[in-house]
């Protein structure tokens, strides 16, 4: 696949001078970067570097944490999501998130996928089952589960439960999908399946993934951001970050010397 240059890309999420404090502790320091539409962007860095915190800023998942303070700007398609008039439910519909542990609801497979559209007010059964099929097909699960849509989602394997979480997201037609270590609890085959799926999903969505696994970032992303102690150290094309990083701290991290 040809690498597209930033000027051919459409900025989807723009982060500008983002500071985040947990009480006295500053977890993000003047972070500025642009996530582009239909790209997979990986955020890497050692534990505690702020990568998950940054990810969670993108759909305001940090808001509920007591003592938190966010300064700076995060814009989705040019609109500040920290603006006073931002509707959080709507934001999280547009910017969905998948977590490390697949958090399926203790409901049937069908109800897991239909849950979101129902919450957003869809009642038409035919339309709902269409969405369920399309969403499960989008994550490659449809063939496996079509005959048992009414069994509990908890009966699925861990890898399939994670795929179901993605299907649940896709069902509400988000624009951006945030993945926080989505494969770290999964076996290698399920991991590769998630990575392949990201490549498929990027045709329709903007994908941002936080991962500890550098090889995963290298395999599955177009662009990579490296963070250290709350700062964005380097951001560029994945192929450049992993073959010829410009910053010596990035160099040390990706070669295992940090």
């Amino acid at each position: 696949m040809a690498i597209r240059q930033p000027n051919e890309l459409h900025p989807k999420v723009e982060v500008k001078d983002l500071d985040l404090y947990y009480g006295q502790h500053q977890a993000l320091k003047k972070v500025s970067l642009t996530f582009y539409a239909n790209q997979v962007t990986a955020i890497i860095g050692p534990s505690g570097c702020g990568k998950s915190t940054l990810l969670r800023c993108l759909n305001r998942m940090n808001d509920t944490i007591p003592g938190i303070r966010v300064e700076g700007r995060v814009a989705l398609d040019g609109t500040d999501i920290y603006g006073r008039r931002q509707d959080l439910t709507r934001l999280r519909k547009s910017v969905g998130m998948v977590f490390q542990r697949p958090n399926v609801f203790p409901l049937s497979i069908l109800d897991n996928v239909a849950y979101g559209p129902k919450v957003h007010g869809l009642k038409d059964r035919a339309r709902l089952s269409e969405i369920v099929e399309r969403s499960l097909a989008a994550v490659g699960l449809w063939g496996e589960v079509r005959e048992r849509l009414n069994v509990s989602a908890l009966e699925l394997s861990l890898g399939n439960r994670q795929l179901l979480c993605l299907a649940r997201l896709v069902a509400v037609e988000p624009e951006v999908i945030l993945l926080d270590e989505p494969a770290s609890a999964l076996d290698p085959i399920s991991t590769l399946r998630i990575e392949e799926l990201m490549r498929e999903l990027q045709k329709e969505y903007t994908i941002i993934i936080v991962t500890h696994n550098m090889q995963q970032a290298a395999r599955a992303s177009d662009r990579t951001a490296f963070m250290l102690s709350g700062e964005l150290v380097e951001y560029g094309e994945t192929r450049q970050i992993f073959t010829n990083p410009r910053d010596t701290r990035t160099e040390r991290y990706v070669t295992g010397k940090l």
Partner: protein
Amino acid sequence: MSVRESFDRELQVLQKDLLKMGMVAEDMVHKALQALANRDAALADTVLAMDDDVDRLNLDIESRCLQLIALQQPMAKDLRTIAAVMKIITDVERVGDYAVDIAKESVKLADRPLFKPLVDIPRMAELVKKMLRESLEGFVTRDLNLIHQMIRHDDDVDHLYKYLFDELMQFMEKDPKLVYQALHLLMITRSLERIADHITNIGERVIYMETGEMKELHA
């Protein structure tokens, strides 16, 4: 402080073995020229035997590079180093092959005195050996000045090659009896010129390893 000490150690050993391989190749060029100058067929045989060592090192280093890539998933400069080693060994192996060609030519010339004393061919060989040392030292020390120095020597080698080509042609035109020797001497100069080209490839890889930039060094 690296958390990948065993990997770093393996990478060091790999580079040391490449250096060893390069030194064997340099010695082969040296001995092949001595065999020519001293009409020493036994020494020429030694060169042929040394080529087995170079070939063995080539395969051994290549398979270790592949193992490191598969098992350690190297990144950034580590990856570039391994990629450089994999390319460089091919060029060093070719240097060895050309030294063998020179040794074989020297055997063909050993049975009678040469029609002229050897002056420019040994000069060319000295330059080539110097180039090989510069590129390998540049590889080890990451000193790109050595690489640029080596490239200047490549220009000298090219000039000598053109000069020798014309000179040997003239001998052949003047006296058909000289064709046999002149032709074999020409083959030797051609081999030396080819060796120098492979050495510039090594320089390109050292630059890539250090800067991440791929560029052609040939003038």
